[in-house]
């Protein structure tokens, strides 16, 4: 076993900057919370979905630009988003989609699936609140399209315990694209 061999690298290796995630039970609970989140959205149960949003929600999908490696910290706009919502504006979106019968951008509804993976959970300074990173692969299919439009992203959530379950306090969705591949975000991420 050569695990005592020396590592030869042409530069000093910096330490890992990511803390250790939380325990497996909390992780399981929050993962199931994210599955519930995805299930409600995928099934267009948008009115039910409002239950798991916190009243002080911030929901942000920043605009991105391709930059040289040296500028990559400024790829995401801190100000302008593809979406920039609070609970009230999201409730209005849901109202339109669910209750008007004239929200054409999603009628017939897209077939959307939100594949959630790479979930990691960290405790925060606030008791009962967790920072959660999850990877989102979203497939979207409309009408009789034979292929799917994809969206790949990293979600940074703040999740808060609420009785037996959780609520979403903050979601920032960092897309792996500078030009979005679909004609709108009439859907939630």
């Amino acid at each position, binding site marked *: 076993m050569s695990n005592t061999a020396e590592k030869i690298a042409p530069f000093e290796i910096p330490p890992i900057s990511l803390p250790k995630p939380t325990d497996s039970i909390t992780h399981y609970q929050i993962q199931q919370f994210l599955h519930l989140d995805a299930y409600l959205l995928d099934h267009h149960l948008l009115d039910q979905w409002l239950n798991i949003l916190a009243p002080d929600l911030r929901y942000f999908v920043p605009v991105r630009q391709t930059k040289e490696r040296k500028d990559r910290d400024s790829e995401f706009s801190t100000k302008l988003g593809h*979406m920039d919502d609070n609970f009230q504006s999201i409730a209005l979106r849901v109202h339109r989609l669910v209750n008007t019968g004239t929200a054409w*951008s999603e009628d017939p509804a897209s077939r959307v699936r939100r594949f959630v993976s790479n979930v990691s959970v960290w405790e925060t300074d606030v008791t009962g609140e967790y920072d959660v990173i999850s990877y989102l692969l979203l497939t979207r299919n409309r009408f009789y399209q034979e292929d799917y439009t994809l969206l790949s992203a990293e979600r940074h959530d703040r999740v808060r315990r609420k009785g037996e379950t959780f609520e979403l306090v903050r979601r920032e969705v960092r897309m792996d694209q500078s030009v979005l591949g679909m004609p709108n975000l009439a859907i939630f991420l």
Partner: protein
Amino acid sequence: MATQNGNANEDYAMLRKANPVLSDGTPIADLFNLETREVSLSTMYDPELYRVEMDKIFTKVWLLLGHATEIPKSGDYVVRHMGEDEVIVARDRKGEIHVSLNVCPHRGMHVCTAESGNAQVHKCIYHGWAFRPDGSFVGAPLEKEKMHGDIYPKEKLGLKKARVQLFHGLIFATWNEEAGPLEEQLGDMKFYYDIMFGKTHGGMEVLGPPQRLTIPANWKTAGEQAACDGFHTLTLHRSQFDIGNFGNISDTMEEFVPIMQGVNVADRGNALRCISAATTFASVIGSGEDFNKMSDDERLAKLPPPGIVNAQLLAEMKERLSPEQLHVCAVAPPQVGNMFPNVNLLFIYAPLPDGTLGSGYVVHTINPRGPDKFQWITWFLCEKDTPEEVKDIIRAVAVQTGGTSGLIEQDDSDTWPHMTEAARGSWGRTETLKYQAIGGVNRPEGWPDKANVYAGLSKDDAQWHWWLQYHELMVNK
């Protein structure tokens, strides 16, 4: 380069260049019926027609590329598109803005591979040819070896440059050496665009980098709609009435539809809808006062036009605009429309905590990426001298209304692809687009004699100008 192949097929080809006929034998002129105001639906997909458009429109006219506030500092640049060509939009040391083809004259590599940044020298990563922000050639590596050769002097080895013109901070460019100034293209509509973009000393600024997305549709689906298709609001955007965003609507829509009323103005393919201030006043302020009886000054005080959020800006506006322009602002300020060929403008009110209205502009370009695809670019703009905390509110409201996830515009972007799909079919392509709701010229008393004026319910008059301009460029030129 010299031609050694003079013969019949070349003659034919030359003919086709001058007077385009599609390969199935259809002259482009036959796609239009100017009398009955019809356009063949085939225009919404035909790949041959698309190539002609790239030559006859997108390399000939002035195109909007962005806003000067996106690149405030020397060396700042963004990469944008003119038709399917990538260009570098950069500010030089003197503060001037240049637009250069992002294609290396050495071997055709993209010179900038990032979409924005800051550099005084753009060095091509392939063989190292270097260029300044103004596109001029600096040199190639191994200077003394003259690796760029000595056939051309250095002056000839810069990036291909476009002509640039700023309009109230909006950056326009064209490849066409023979084009008149931008004003010629705007025609009489400049009068209105000046109102929209030039009414404060500080001018406008972007609220962030633009949203960008891809729509699987022909660019003209969005292009022609932008030119004052007011009618679709009632049906496609019906949910806005249903959730109370557009005021009331009767169930039959037969009755009074305030949002449809106003003055449409159009010239050379440019069109704008000026929406009745009285109507806005009634629905937003609703004080019961009779707006129609007020003077222009009173009206402007009660309902300042879009963007004028405080007394200071109001004063600036009065200083900068002519009485005729102020009259327009007082009775029906321009709020939504286009600039030919591929710009869409939309004004958005944002209610502020103090009960007043903030406002911003949504500015789109529709960038063709093939006969059945375009990139949709969305800038959010407001008056630079708007207070910062108001800008934050405007930004959020505008993003919730227009662009990628906008409650209004998400219905549009879902509609356009259907039209291009319909235009693919052998039978569908023989259907026509119809612009037959004709109101006729109708200039209200006191309205300035600028552009073609169509007051009343928004019909197809203004929109038809878009196709007339398209026809002019594609058939007559």
